[in-house]
């Protein structure tokens, strides 16, 4: 085991895959200096400018480079800088990448990883903070991942690069500097499996990405005051681990889904609906969702604080769910 930040872990994960497979290459803005956050630092000197491609500000073309590159037999890793900017390439993501294999009757495989550093960081406001993972989960053809820990970010990035399907890889930009233990060797995390963060019997909390680290603190606080919370970090949003969620809900009878995205039509709605359709008999309380209000992310600190799903919000929701 070594200890690394999320940022170091994903950088190493990409470098390992590029060493392993000469058809893996990365493309995005400012990659020659390591990308916006340094998640590509040092890679250009090892792999050269044809495999660490520093691109113009051309999101539609960056994503197209991924698709065209895949159709020509390579495995591109496409950097979107911040998730919000992927909206400038939504046609390429939804109309082209996601459908190419199906539309062409299976002639094409599209092993592209699209990296979306996502979520709120202080003062980033409405166009640099939003969480739109449920859009991508809605689109047939895409795999959607949203890990939170250093080990999972590395292990799932490596699995994503090896995946034959296009992967939307959502990265927890607010917690790049969180550290964690990384297993030695070729550490790949299987796609589609949730991580059991804490075992418990009273209430099931399901979450992902940055919220997993916030929820973890909330859960620890509740455990201290006697509530035995089970916490699942979903990690994979499509496919998501229905087995782990159903099993947990069967045990606890209570489900709280927490996400940073706007609550309305967020992925929480799908998870709650799926649980209700399948294991309603095991529920002793109505399931709950906790997400952002249906408003753009605001700028001013008090507005931002009111907008965020906080540790306190999560604790309160858990306590309400176990109240007699």
């Amino acid at each position, binding site marked *: 085991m070594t200890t690394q930040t999320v940022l170091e872990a994903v950088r190493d994960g990409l470098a390992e895959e590029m060493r392993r497979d*000469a058809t893996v290459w990365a493309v995005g803005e400012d990659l020659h200096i390591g990308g916006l956050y340094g998640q590509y630092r040092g890679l250009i000197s090892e792999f050269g400018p044809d495999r660490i491609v520093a691109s113009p500000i051309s999101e539609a073309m960056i994503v*197209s480079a991924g698709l065209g590159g895949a159709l020509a037999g390579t495995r591109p890793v496409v950097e979107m800088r911040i998730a919000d900017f992927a909206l400038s390439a939504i046609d390429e993501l939804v109309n082209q990448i996601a459908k190419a294999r199906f539309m062409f009757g299976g002639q*094409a495989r599209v092993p592209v990883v699209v990296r979306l550093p996502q979520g709120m960081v202080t003062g980033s406001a409405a166009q640099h903070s939003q969480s739109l993972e449920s859009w991508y989960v809605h689109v047939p053809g895409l795999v959607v991942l949203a890990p939170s820990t250093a080990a999972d970010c590395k292990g799932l990035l490596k699995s994503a690069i090896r995946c034959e399907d296009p992967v939307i890889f959502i990265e927890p930009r607010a917690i790049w500097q969180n550290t964690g233990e990384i297993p030695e060797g070729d550490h790949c995390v299987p*796609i589609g499996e949730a991580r059991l963060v804490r075992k418990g019997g009273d209430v099931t909390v399901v979450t992902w990405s940055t919220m997993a680290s916030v929820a973890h603190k909330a859960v620890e606080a509740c455990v201290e005051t006697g509530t035995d919370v089970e916490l699942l970090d979903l990690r994979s949003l499509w496919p998501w681990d229905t087995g782990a969620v159903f099993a947990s809900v069967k045990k606890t009878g209570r489900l709280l889904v927490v996400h940073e995205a706007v609550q309305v039509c967020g992925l929480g709605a799908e998870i709650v609906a799926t649980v209700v359709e399948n294991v309603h008999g095991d529920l002793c309380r109505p399931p709950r969702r906790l997400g952002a209000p249906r408003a753009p992310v605001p700028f001013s600190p008090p507005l931002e604080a009111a907008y965020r799903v906080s540790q306190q919000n999560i604790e309160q929701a858990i306590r309400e769910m176990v109240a007699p």
Partner: protein
Amino acid sequence: MTDIDNNNERKRALALHRTMLSIRRFEEAAEIAQRDGEIPGTLHLSIGQEAVAAGVCSALEPADLITSTHRGHGHSIAKGASLSAMMAELFGRVTGTCKGKGGSMHIADFSAGMLGANGVVGGGLGIAVGAAQGLRVRGSEAVTACFFGDGAVNRGPFLESLNWAATFRLPVLFVCEDNGYAAFTETARLTAGAGPAARAESLGIQSMVVDGNDVLAVADAAAAMVERLRREGGPAFIHAQTYRLRGHTIADQGAYRDAERHSRQELRDPILLMRQRLTDWNLSQDVQRLQVEVETEIAAALVAAREAVFPEPASIYAEVQDIGAPA
């Protein structure tokens, strides 16, 4: 002009004519089949524009790649896609190029280097440029050609793709197939500046304007450009000026078109022009032979399409994705 003396030139001219005939007869047959209710959905026909597809693809090798548009039957045929698999695709059959999942607007034949028609105007430009970048990563010398309409030059991907290809000196041949109209609008009315080639030139991309109804002119231009791409890298740009003899879709009667221009253009049908030339070269017998050959192929493609089965409904779920596949 009398006899054409060079044997290679003769072969080349006949091959180009044959490609144009295949496209024309394929689309005429599809047009009838659509009207008869055998082909679902609509069709965007390239009747009158065949010289662009035939000329450009004559400069390409099998390993070279192309991307195409919603009006892409000609590009596919010229790049070597199977006529019968294409016809079966239009008929929605399981033997189609895309197993009946794509239809006219998504025909692709990866075995022929044809990376797909596209239902989104301008959608193929970035894919072609990306493919060229992928080929570079793989150390391949192949070139990529990218067909798009005059309407696509007003969309953002046009600028993004050209700038990118020029910046990275990728061997991409951009082919603006200008048929005068973008759907029901005369494109020039809503396009600022001195035209597509001028836009490309402004980015330092070497460009040519050619008569897109003269298949030899297109073929010569493409051969020169592709040769340069292979030698020096790219990109390069061809603005091929042609004319759409049919409506935008099969349902469109073209009432918005200038009647005088239309009649003039009917006389400039690229197949008529080439047939006249071949006759002048004393090759009418070869032309007749080609017509019979093409007719036989189209008839066989129609029979095969009609006889083929439809896909099983369960195939909706196949080839969406392996991980997280729908159930």
